[in-house]
Each structure stands twice: as structure tokens, then as C-alpha cells.
């Protein structure tokens, strides 16, 4: 009898810990559909409502010209465009082109850097959503050894 009660109590504590998880983790939905789509245009339509972007020279996209290791390709994106809401990285030739998307919350600068996997030589596109339009710029990254596994 005592053993069963102890087991029940520990289950209750675990549940309480889960319920107390920070709200930020549950707040903005992870765009699972956009991440699963296999065509860049479709992924952008799902995430941003359109695959049409305005080419902009106000987006600074830094990627290597040649990535020897496709598993770790550094990407840095910043922009002087105003009222940026999100920055997304789209790798046209990846099996699933939308690699990542970042919510630029109020007070946060439109300036991010990360590292992505590329399966083969491809254009890498930085897509910047603002309150007055969706802008983009792209650069080709040559990949000698693909990094998507398999």
C-alpha cells in the first residue's frame, strides 16, 4: 500500500513540473508544415503567405563561396531594412529547403548567425519579412561534400 502511494506521488510531481514549463516554450508554434515541404516556393508560401519576394541590396548575407563540409555551413544575415518581423534561411536544393526561421521580436536587431547543413551546391536565400514587404537576397554556396547524411 505504501509503495503504491509513493509511486503515485512521484507521478504527480512530474506532471506538475510539466505544467509549470515556461510559457515561452509553448508560445509561438513551430512551423512544422513549412519545414516539411520539399519545394522552396511551397515552403515560403506556407510560412510567409507568398513565394514572391522583393530583391533587396539592404540585406547582408554572408556565406562561404565554397563549403568543404556541407554539414557545417556558416550563415550570417543582417539588414538595414526597418520593422523586421522575421528572417528565414532557404536552401533551394536541400531536400527540405526551409532550414530555419527566426522571429525578430520588438527591440531585437535583425542580425543573426547560425550554421546549416547543405546537401549539394545551391543558392542560399535570406528572406526578410518586414511590416512593409518581404525581401530577399541569395548567394550560391558550392558544396564539395554534402552534409545531409544518408
Amino acid at each position, binding site marked *: 500500500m505504501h509503495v503504491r502511494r509513493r509511486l503515485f506521488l512521484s507521478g504527480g510531481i512530474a506532471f506538475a513540473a510539466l505544467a509549470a514549463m515556461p510559457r515561452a516554450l509553448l*508560445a509561438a508554434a513551430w512551423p512544422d508544415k513549412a519545414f516539411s515541404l520539399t519545394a522552396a516556393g511551397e515552403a515560403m508560401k506556407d510560412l510567409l503567405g507568398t513565394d514572391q519576394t522583393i530583391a533587396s541590396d539592404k540585406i547582408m548575407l554572408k556565406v562561404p563561396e565554397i563549403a568543404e563540409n556541407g554539414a557545417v555551413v556558416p550563415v550570417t544575415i543582417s539588414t538595414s531594412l526597418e520593422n523586421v518581423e522575421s528572417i528565414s534561411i532557404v536552401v533551394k536544393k536541400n531536400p527540405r529547403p526551409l532550414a530555419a526561421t527566426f522571429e525578430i521580436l520588438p527591440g531585437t536587431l535583425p542580425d543573426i548567425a547560425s550554421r546549416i547543413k547543405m546537401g549539394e551546391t545551391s543558392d542560399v536565400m535570406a528572406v526578410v519579412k518586414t511590416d512593409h514587404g518581404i525581401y530577399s537576397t541569395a548567394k550560391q554556396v558550392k558544396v564539395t561534400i554534402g552534409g545531409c547524411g544518408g
Partner: protein
Amino acid sequence: MASNIKIKAKLSGDIADIKSLMIHPMETGARKDPDTGELVPMHHITQLTFTNNDKPVMVANFSTAVSKNPYFSFKFGGANAGDKLKVSWVDNLGRTDELETVLK
């Protein structure tokens, strides 16, 4: 529990420059285990969230195409020494990790 997240936070004026590195296999689900020949199941961070004094400042949504042991850096304004910066992530298997630090 020890965190597998490392943060470097630099304050210049009221701009906080945050560099983060987290340990995570970021498996795509397409890689074969070289020993067994079986596909290694997809296991990747889905969402990474930063708050400063409990105010969300960044939400990063990752696919499997973010590199293993993700590196992520960003900047936000309105930051002050003494601010409590918290980073947390969740992955597709429901695992989580978090770290708190104070801006100097």
C-alpha cells in the same frame, strides 16, 4: 541538472550581443548508423527561445538542416547590466534544456 548550453553575452551600451552553443545531435533521420546499417531516427531541436527579464527577445525555429551542436548568435536592444537572460530549447522528442545567465 547541468545544462548543455553555453552562452557568451557582451553588453555594448544597451545592445546585448549573444552567442550560444548547444550540444545536440541534430539527426536528420536520413543518416545510417555505420555499425547497424539502420537509419538513425530524427532527433533535433525544434525551438530555441531567449527571454530577457522574462520578456521574449528571440524565437529561433530550427529544422533538421541546422548543423549538429547548433551555434546561434543574435543581438537585442534595451539591455542592462544585471538583466536575467534565459535560454531554453525543446526538441522533437520533447526533451528540453535551459540556462540562465546575468548580463554584465
